[in-house]
């Protein structure tokens, strides 16, 4: 199993360091991302999910400890080498442009193309694979601003697939989607993790859905950060500690959150 680990960390503390002081947002975190797994990162707003994602993706450094990608410190990667190991799907809007869906997906090949960005037959193959896997063939020639939010999310996932990296990280891919689209999107991620043997990590607020569809979850609570399978997390009652409020609790039998209206 050892060689199946793509990314791991020793015990890290995350937060922001300026010249004057260090603000630690969460500490005592250990994570391990393995091949073929769909992993959800959950926790309340402001608990440090984004900071953790930024730390894992090398955008910022951990305050203490190190993150290793393929057993090499992530801080030692160049931008281009890193781009061949992990791809991102972010929450930010795309700037206005005339990009078609196909061109957008093809931009995922940038880490491999020459100085002019010319696509080789291999590049085109990977782009078409990504489009087929995400089932967006019918959108390929449309402009990226002509499609719905749910479709755009799939296109961005296709772009990440085209980047052909062992690890894909998505920041809240299910926000702005209705329940059905949330479910189908996560199903797509689950299928991709199995079919392409990639590790897919995403942050989300849809804990119920994540419990049903994910192989593992990283739960951030005020006390600690735990990584385990949904079943184990249910058994040891971790979900009850996510929300620091009496009116919401986790029902272990039903496997979902219940609200108490008082």
């Amino acid at each position, binding site marked *: 199993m050892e060689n199946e680990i793509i990314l791991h960390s020793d015990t890290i503390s995350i937060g922001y360091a300026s010249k004057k002081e260090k603000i630690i947002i969460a500490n005592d975190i250990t994570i391990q991302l393995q091949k073929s797994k769909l992993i959800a990162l959950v926790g309340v707003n402001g608990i440090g999910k984004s900071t953790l994602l930024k730390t894992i993706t090398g955008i910022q450094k951990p305050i203490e400890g190190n993150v290793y990608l393929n057993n090499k410190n992530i801080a030692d990667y160049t931008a281009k080498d890193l781009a061949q190991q992990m791809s*991102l799907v972010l929450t930010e809007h795309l*700037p206005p442009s005339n990009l078609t869906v196909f061109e957008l997906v093809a931009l995922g090949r940038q880490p491999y193309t020459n100085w002019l960005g010319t696509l080789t037959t291999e590049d085109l193959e990977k782009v078409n694979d990504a489009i087929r896997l995400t089932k967006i063939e019918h959108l390929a020639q449309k402009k990226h601003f002509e499609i719905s939010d749910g479709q755009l999310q799939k296109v961005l996932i296709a772009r990440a697939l085209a980047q052909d990296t062992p690890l894909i990280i998505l920041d809240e891919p299910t926000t702005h989607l209705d329940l059905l689209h949330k479910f189908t999107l996560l199903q797509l991620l689950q299928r991709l993790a199995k079919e392409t043997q990639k590790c897919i990590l995403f942050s989300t607020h849809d804990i119920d859905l994540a419990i049903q569809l994910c192989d593992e979850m990283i739960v951030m609570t005020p006390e600690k950060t735990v990584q385990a399978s949904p079943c184990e997390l249910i058994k040891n009652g971790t979900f009850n500690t996510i929300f620091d409020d009496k009116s919401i609790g986790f029902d272990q039998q039903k496997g979902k959150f219940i609200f108490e209206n008082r």
Partner: protein
Amino acid sequence: MTTKRHYFLFISFAILLAFFFSMDLISGQVSIPLKEVFKILIGHESSKSTWDYIILNFRLPKAITAILVGMGLSISGLLMQTLFRNPLAGPYVLGLSSGSSLGVAFVILGAGFLPSFLNQAVLSDYGIVLASCLGSFLVVLAIMIVAQRLRNTMSILIVGLMFGSFAGAIVNVLSYFSTAEQLQKFTFWSMGNLGNLSWNSIGILGTVVSVGLLLSLFSIKSLDALLLGENYAKSVGLNFKKARFIIIIATSILAGSITAFAGPIAFIGLAVPHIAKLLFQTSNHKILFFSTLLLGAILMLICDIISQMPYLSMTLPINAITSIMGAPVVIWLLISKKNIQ
């Protein structure tokens, strides 16, 4: 389908460029037949020696300047529009030309304050180009800093506007203290002029513009990545700071050197990339780079032909022509494009 259309457009543009280039050479107060123009161009004597003189020392340099100016300003606009994620960006609108003007004003109007031996050095072509490039570079730097804080398209434009009036005010103060002769020189410069360039000056302009265009050519891949926004661009392996630095250097030397030699020329930099995007219906910078290059040259030649209409006894300032053609494009863009946030 789309590539066929692109080839067709490229070929038509190449033909149009050749057409307007010859049109520009034959038109003017003295009409010279096309056949004679060709004779002169390939090195033969024409039937009249005055024609030789007019073509080789006046019209040919002017047409070449028009092409260099059109290409350089348009590419500089294309770079800025992608870098600042702003469809309304351009060297004139964002105040690069004002920055250059300020640099040139300091040199032309302020040279009197310097000792005479420095005066000569500063007032040379090189001195003016350097001051002008420096002026536009400082303005792009300032805009970049503002653009990082304000994500809003319109606020960046307002900042450009402010640079314009700021530069204008300083120029006013400078002109208050300068002689009539200096003032006249600066006023003529500021109206924009494609003629009056010696072959020597064209050599300098051509070299500097080529460097700028070459830097832009090497930025094509980064520009494509930037279509996804800064963070995505970084995630596909773009060295953002380096790419941004190269783009900014390219923009400021293109806008700066052209403004130094031809004066501030409005709207070409803003309008041409949009016409290219509209005709080619793409954001692919490999296509946009070459189409903008061709279109910029064509449009500038057309403006030059218009500025010396055969029925007019004098040439109109080129800046007036580009503004009359360009300003409506901007208004139309604001009203009709849904894709502007």
